[in-house]
């Protein structure tokens, strides 16, 4: 239902998203992982037609077979909420503090589907039940500050579901929440996706959550999609050096905290941080931080290599190998 072909988002400072290719079918659950600054939010906003002002879009972004790349705001408004919906990272900030949460959730139903106040209220009530908000009738009338972080995120999920979208994009929906609440929200999103046959794009930097929630995964770095494949396979046998680095940097509870000589083990890290747009290398974005870099890396963008129908990675070292 959604397809990106060589889709790029360019700023004057550089490309925040470079030739992304992606297909999402109904019911798919796709994870997107990568460090801060790797372009995950930019991808999510692009899928909503909400790339920031000043961005130049190229390539094709097809929703239901229609290329939306050059469509205007009004055409996007007809697709948002009804075809694609999104929830944001900060449940504290994503609700209008002066509006009853019920009114916020009912708004898209009234605007898009012309429901009466009572009809919208009835649907909001059943949505609140569906997303697991206790005492939904009372909650509808409350203001955001009266709710906990987890409940606010549930309200935002209800808002996103208001007009039965076919695709829900969740941009780091659990980053701002306590670990135990995060698991509940993750499981809720999976359940909703399964029950409603709704595709889910789950953006996170929590590898455990992505393993739990998704079938496929895209690893992003510096605006490039560096690796793609079934979640379990990619996490078990990563092909791209960045994916390997990302997985090595995870704490492993089975490992002892001290090595044989009694020295404290340090968690391996990827040296450095994601550079700013204007400082990203022209070739492979990971050049400069990559442990297995060869001279051609910084100069030439590696092509995306397919290893199987649904497995690919973009690294010069994979070229010709393992085909």
């Amino acid at each position, binding site marked *: 239902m959604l397809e990106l072909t060589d889709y790029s988002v360019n700023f004057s400072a550089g490309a925040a998203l470079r030739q992304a290719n992606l297909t999402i079918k109904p019911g798919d659950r796709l994870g997107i992982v990568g460090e801060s600054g790797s372009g995950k939010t930019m991808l999510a906003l692009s899928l909503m037609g909400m790339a920031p002002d000043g961005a130049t879009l190229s390539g094709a972004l097809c929703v239901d077979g229609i290329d939306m790349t050059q469509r205007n705001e009004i055409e996007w408004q007809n697709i948002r909420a009804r075809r694609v919906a999104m929830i944001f990272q900060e449940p504290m900030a994503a609700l*209008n503090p002066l*509006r009853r949460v019920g009114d916020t959730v009912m708004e898209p139903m009234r605007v898009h589907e012309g429901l009466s106040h009572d009809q919208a209220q009835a649907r909001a009530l059943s949505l609140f039940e569906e997303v697991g908000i206790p005492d939904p009738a009372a909650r509808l009338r409350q203001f955001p500050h009266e709710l906990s972080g987890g409940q606010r995120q549930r309200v935002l999920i209800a*808002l996103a579901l208001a007009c039965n979208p076919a695709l829900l994009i969740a941009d780091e929906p659990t980053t701002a929440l306590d670990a135990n609440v995060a698991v509940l929200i993750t499981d809720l999103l999976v359940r909703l996706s399964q029950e409603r046959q709704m595709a889910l794009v789950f953006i996170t930097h929590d590898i455990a959550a992505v393993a739990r929630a998704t079938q496929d995964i895209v690893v992003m770095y510096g605006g490039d999609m560096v690796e793609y494949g079934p979640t379990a396979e990619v996490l078990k046998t990563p092909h791209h050096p960045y994916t390997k680095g990302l997985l090595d940097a995870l704490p492993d509870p089975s490992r002892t905290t001290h090595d044989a000589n009694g020295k404290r083990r340090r968690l391996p890290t990827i040296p450095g941080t994601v550079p700013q747009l204007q400082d990203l290398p022209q070739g492979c974005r990971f050049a400069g931080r990559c442990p297995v870099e060869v001279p051609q890396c910084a100069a030439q963008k590696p092509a995306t290599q397919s290893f199987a129908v649904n497995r690919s990675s973009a690294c010069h070292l994979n070229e010709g190998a393992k085909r």
Partner: protein
Amino acid sequence: MNRRLPTNLVIGAVLVALVVGVAALSLVWTPHDPTLMNIRGKFADPSEAHWLGTDQLGRDVVSQLMAAARNSMTVALVAVLLGGSIGVALGLFASAVGGWVEDGVMRLADLGFAFPALLFAIMLAAVFGPSLSNAVLAIAFINIPIFARVTRGSANQIWTLDYVSASRAAGMNKFVISRDHILPNIAAAIIVQATIEFAVAILAEAALSYLGLGAQPPASSWGRMLSEAQTLMYLAPQLAIYPGLCIITAVLGFGLLGDGLRDISDPRLSRQR
């Protein structure tokens, strides 16, 4: 947390309550008919019948001051509401559309800023004759760019917030977002501005009436009382002092109230205090 109200807010509120109360009272009761002349009783000293005496035509000063308060409040209210609504609408529109439309609207506002109200009032008076309603229009006009600027500035901040993005992601158009999300969240800033502009409008009305471009006889106005008393300064200085004090009270009251409201509505400012 310091829960004490700022002093300027308290003093401002008391003064405003006094002026507005007197203006409201004049709707139903004044000691005398403010326009009733009594040449034989002119320049009377304060007495039980005339608390502040009478003027050069024997009219009761207290009654005139009360009626003038009502006129002054009415002019300021209508002018600020009219100019404010247009300005707020323009500001919201500019902020929502952005791009060259926003730039265009704001350049127009700059132009309006550069255009003095007095000049506009003189222009209106020249074309349509001097009247209180032309004074209202002139004061409303200067309020448009002020409110457009404040609204656009505050609205631009709100547009960057997550709950606006969430609303956009739910497919809401800019009109709905402006009405349901932007306006309520900038209302405090607009109310503060309106209170301050109310003070400015009172002063402007007094000035225009003083110059004969505002309230026309027999309507009472502090500004006109002042101009009439000017020629009698040596004979009866109190006739200039009373309306002057009234103007000071009203302007100071609304100004302090506006400042106080700003202090409590902007926590960053009040914490510095």
